[in-house]
């Protein structure tokens, strides 16, 4: 009897307490997310309020909706902003393609093919992860200058086709190693060459890791400011990030409204790209054909 009573007492208390804890928890999370989102919201609101109000008002809500910043931003520079979007898109898409193709090939070689010094080269490749971009910047610049590639998109794109991104290779090697070797062997018995195994077996089973590589490639190239800053001089070749920088003028005639309006627009492709590829991330199908 007593134990029963204790149980019922406990039961009546615990849901109420857990509800309180969960309320506290959610409030805390909401506060933190608002803090995180505040700069983004501020930028959004700055892009749609009258330019004079941008730095004078602390409120997130604009006194009036004024979309003229978008128009001014789009046409306010010497080169129309659409050109920057186009340049960025070309570089990003080529980079994604290059990274996915080249890194998956390199990863396939490291994961499945036997060749002399495989482990040594793998270690060297991983070693490149630890070299900061800025260390190789000057020799690289000299190289591309001698090739006559400066002020073209080639220095930003061509290396991607040579599997320079060790991070993606490593990611894919790990994934490929998880694909059962018996599938390769079955394919070999079916008469497949290494190429065909890569193309017909490995790639279709690797959509999650390929999508991951694609998303990050796109994000990193789209957001890259430093690379384009170094290699692109002519304003016609500028990327979005360089274009945004051009709104801020050292002589004091900065167009802040245009800057925030175009910054907002620059998020749109990233948003949609992520939306499309994240579906592929969710589920890998690599092992479902095998009984484990």
């Amino acid at each position, binding site marked *: 009897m007593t134990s029963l009573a204790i149980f019922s007492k406990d039961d009546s208390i615990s849901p109420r307490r857990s509800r309180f804890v969960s309320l506290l928890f959610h409030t805390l999370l909401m506060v933190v997310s608002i803090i995180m989102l505040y700069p983004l919201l501020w930028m959004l609101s700055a892009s749609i309020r009258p330019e004079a109000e941008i730095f004078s008002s602390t409120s997130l809500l604009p006194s009036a909706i004024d979309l003229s910043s978008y128009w001014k931003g789009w046409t306010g520079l010497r080169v129309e902003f659409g050109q920057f979007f186009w340049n960025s898109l070309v570089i990003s898409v080529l980079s994604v393609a290059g990274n996915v193709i080249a890194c998956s090939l390199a990863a396939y070689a490291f994961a499945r093919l036997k060749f002399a010094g495989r482990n040594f080269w793998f270690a060297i490749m991983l070693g490149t992860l630890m070299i900061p971009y800025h260390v190789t910047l000057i020799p690289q610049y000299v190289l591309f200058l001698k090739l006559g590639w400066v002020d073209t998109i080639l220095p930003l794109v061509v290396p991607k086709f040579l599997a320079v991104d060790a991070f993606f290779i490593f990611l894919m090697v790990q994934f490929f190693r998880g694909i059962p070797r*018996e599938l390769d*062997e*079955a394919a070999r018995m*079916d008469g*497949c060459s290494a190429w065909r195994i890569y193309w*017909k077996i490995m790639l279709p089973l690797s959509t999650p890791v390929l999508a991951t590589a694609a998303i990050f490639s796109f994000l990193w190239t789209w957001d890259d400011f430093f690379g384009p800053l170094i290699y692109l001089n002519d304003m016609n070749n500028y990327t979005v990030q360089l274009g945004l920088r051009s709104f801020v003028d050292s002589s004091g005639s900065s167009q802040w409204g245009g800057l925030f309006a175009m910054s907002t627009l620059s998020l749109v492709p990233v948003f949609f790209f992520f939306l499309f590829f994240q579906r592929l991330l969710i589920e890998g*199908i690599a092992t*479902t*054909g095998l*009984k484990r």
Partner: protein
Amino acid sequence: MTTSVVLEKVEKRYGVFDVIHGIDLQTDPGEFAVFVGPSGCGKSTLLRMIAGLEEISGGALMMDGERMNEVVSSERGIAMVFQSYALYPHMSVYKNLAFGLETAGYKKAEIEPRVQQAARVLQIEPLLQRKPKALSGGQRQRVAIGRAIVREPKLFLFDEPLSNLDAELRVQMRVEIARLHRQLGNTMIYVTHDQVEAMTMADKIVVLNAGRIEQVGRPLDLYNHPVKRFVAGFIGSPKMNFLEGVIESTSADATVIRACGASIKLPRALRAVESDMPVTLGLRPEHLNREETGGIKLADLQVDLVENLGDETLLYARSPDGQTINMSLAGEQVIFNGSTVPAFFDIAHCHVFGPDGTAI
């Protein structure tokens, strides 16, 4: 299409480790050969060497008299069924079956009837559009076999294909594979660690241990005349009893062995034995009997445990000198744990092994 497979002094080395030590073996056309042995004995490695998935370090693999060591797997005319089935998870059953033919450059019109034919043989026609993940274990197994059949190979290799199935399905698939072998008539090599599979399916059993062949022969030859203690212990279930004994006396037409506290007279001479030599007496549980008509008396056994299986009764018992002896009696028997039961055996079913484990 049948083919003969001959292994001549085949060896496998991984660095300095010898895994397969010079194996000689002949498989006749149309034969169902089973490689059996404990795990790590090299049976799968040997199969993979025949398949071309492992390099042959020494010796020769001959198929129909032709050396195959350097020929790539896909050109050896071999199809293999893997333990994990290794179905391509992103392809439908139809695509799985057709993939090998597509790779070989067959046209759609040639592929279609062959896939349909294989599907008919294995009764998987309704499954052709499904993905492997939507199939049960037995269905996946069938698809894996189907993938082997469509290529019309000269030789089928099976690498423990039934070990992932539950007991009931295993028996069913065992029968189906045996039937398939009769229907197709191809040479098949089958690897298993399960001696029951080996006994029931094989034309020829190859017992392997530690990278060497212990014995090759028809199932019942191995059961009745094992040449090694290892083979005797491996073939047959429940396992053969091994009793330690010594030679008491030996003459031209009789040998007396002392084991379990009794003197057992065998009416035959044994090779290369002398008095006081330790030997091992091998008696299968099913050859032990508790009736006097059953032959020579071995000993009175102390029964530790009785298992009534209905069709047979298993006794786990001990001899007076403490050696474990199992008995398998036909039908239902009324025997209680802890009771004493006399054990008799038929002299014709008694095996004797020398100190080095060979039958004498």
